[in-house]
């Protein structure tokens, strides 16, 4: 990546990362910490092994959707069934184009029947906001991009709840999985949801920029370990969670991405629905596989997946899983190989054998 630093944005926690001697890299248009001096492996372990980690994910975008047509509008532009959400509930969803392929994957928060909140990927922010505003014509809704004013911290790991509880009056025990509370954290107005991207129990905390550093420091002082992008990617890949630009893109529909569980074809019409229904009938053009290497090596993005001596697909995310004790990968292959044939991954010209497995690659500890 060759972006010069003056073109990169900074989150409200930038000074914290510098104070902590984070190794800053360009990421989705922001200068973000890839790791801190502790190192990616120990950061990963802090989250997996009974501790808690704090992550700055303020680069992500937030869009507020309000008005009497908010529900009808979101039913039209998102794939999941928004009518099933109750106040204080959040779900995973997606924005599709007319071809049924992904504009983005998102989370949708229902504050009340006329007020919703979307969390979107940083790299897709301007595209998403333009898309939402374009399709808002004809609906009585206001679409406001609040990304620049909003900081977002993730607090993940077994100790997350006890650390956060000391900073908020809201009883966190009453906030279930994929539920949220609009509350205060250390005196600042905050939205706290029991969501995350690590496979551990934990929270995501939306705050005004002005409150972010104080909350970060308070959590750090309470024992949370700062976690960079490298460990975050390890934690999410081990869970097999899809990431835009890897498993999800405008080249695949929810049929290929195994995201039909968030694509409710029976809820009524929505953008991309016809194309997804057609693809579902025709069958997936690519099959998603989860692989565990039986030989030595680390599978990485874009490595070729081999069967019958030829390339039949590509790795979209790969890593050495400390818990699985092996290289693990997610990728897309030609559909006829989904259940048949020996697969291997081409690592520097060597075909390293791999076995089909399921995600998550290691046990999930989210609170269901």
């Amino acid at each position: 990546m060759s972006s010069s630093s003056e073109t990169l944005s900074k989150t409200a926690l930038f000074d914290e990362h510098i104070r902590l001697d984070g190794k800053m890299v360009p990421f989705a248009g922001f200068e973000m910490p890839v790791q801190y001096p502790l190192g990616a492996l120990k950061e990963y372990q802090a989250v997996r092994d009974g501790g808690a980690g704090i992550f700055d994910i303020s680069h992500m975008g937030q869009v507020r959707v309000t008005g009497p047509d908010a529900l009808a509008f979101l039913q039209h532009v998102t794939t999941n069934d928004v009518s099933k959400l109750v106040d204080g509930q959040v779900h995973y969803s997606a924005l599709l184009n007319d071809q049924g392929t992904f504009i983005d994957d998102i989370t949708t928060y229902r504050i009340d029947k006329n007020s919703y909140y979307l969390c979107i990927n940083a790299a897709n922010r301007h595209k998403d906001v333009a898309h939402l505003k374009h399709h808002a014509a004809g609906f009585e809704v206001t679409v406001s991009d609040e990304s620049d004013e909003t900081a977002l911290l993730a607090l993940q790991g077994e100790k997350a709840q006890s650390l956060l509880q000391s900073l908020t009056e809201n009883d966190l025990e009453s906030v279930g999985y994929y539920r949220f509370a609009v509350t205060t954290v250390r005196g600042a107005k905050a939205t706290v949801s029991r969501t995350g991207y690590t496979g551990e129990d934990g929270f995501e905390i939306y705050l005004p920029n002005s409150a972010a550093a104080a909350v970060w420091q308070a959590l750090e002082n309470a024992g949370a370990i700062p976690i960079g992008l490298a460990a975050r990617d390890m934690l999410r890949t081990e869970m097999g969670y899809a990431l835009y630009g890897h498993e999800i893109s405008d080249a695949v529909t929810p049929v290929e991405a195994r995201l039909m569980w968030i694509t409710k074809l029976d809820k009524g019409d929505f953008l991309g629905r016809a194309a997804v229904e057609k693809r579902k009938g025709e069958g997936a053009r690519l099959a998603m596989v989860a692989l565990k290497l039986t030989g030595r090596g680390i599978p990485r993005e874009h490595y070729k997946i081999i069967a019958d001596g030829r390339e039949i697909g590509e790795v979209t995310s790969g890593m050495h899983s400390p818990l699985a004790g092996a290289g693990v990968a997610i990728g897309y292959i030609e559909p006829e190989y989904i259940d048949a044939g020996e697969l291997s991954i081409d690592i520097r010209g060597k075909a390293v054998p791999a076995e089909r497995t399921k995600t998550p690659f290691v046990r999930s500890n989210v609170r269901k």
Partner: protein
Amino acid sequence: MTIPADLKYTKDHEWVRIEGDNATFGVTDHAQEALGDIVFVELPEEGRAMAIGDAFAVVESVKAVSDVYAPIVSEVIEGNETLEASPEKVNEDPYGDGWIVKVKVTDGDTSHLMDAAAYQAFLDAA
């Protein structure tokens, strides 16, 4: 940052310890720190003949894949097989237990390599 005085260095951050007809190669303290946590090392086959600059091993950290280049003309005697199970030794002890390969020196010319002072100056200038 450690730079032992008795070793020779390359601009690609390998070190060489020459002992008679044999030598040991590894990556420097600077290299391991820049790479971050090393999680995989791919070693060369015994007997492999190497010219200066040949990529003979691969060191992988959580995020990056890096080639290791031969500092002198040589032939592989053995790779450090301990690293297959414990790649973190490259981080913990880059000039000791984290050595990567022992070689037979084919051409002892080291005039293209840096001594510790020159390598320090090279790092300072980077």
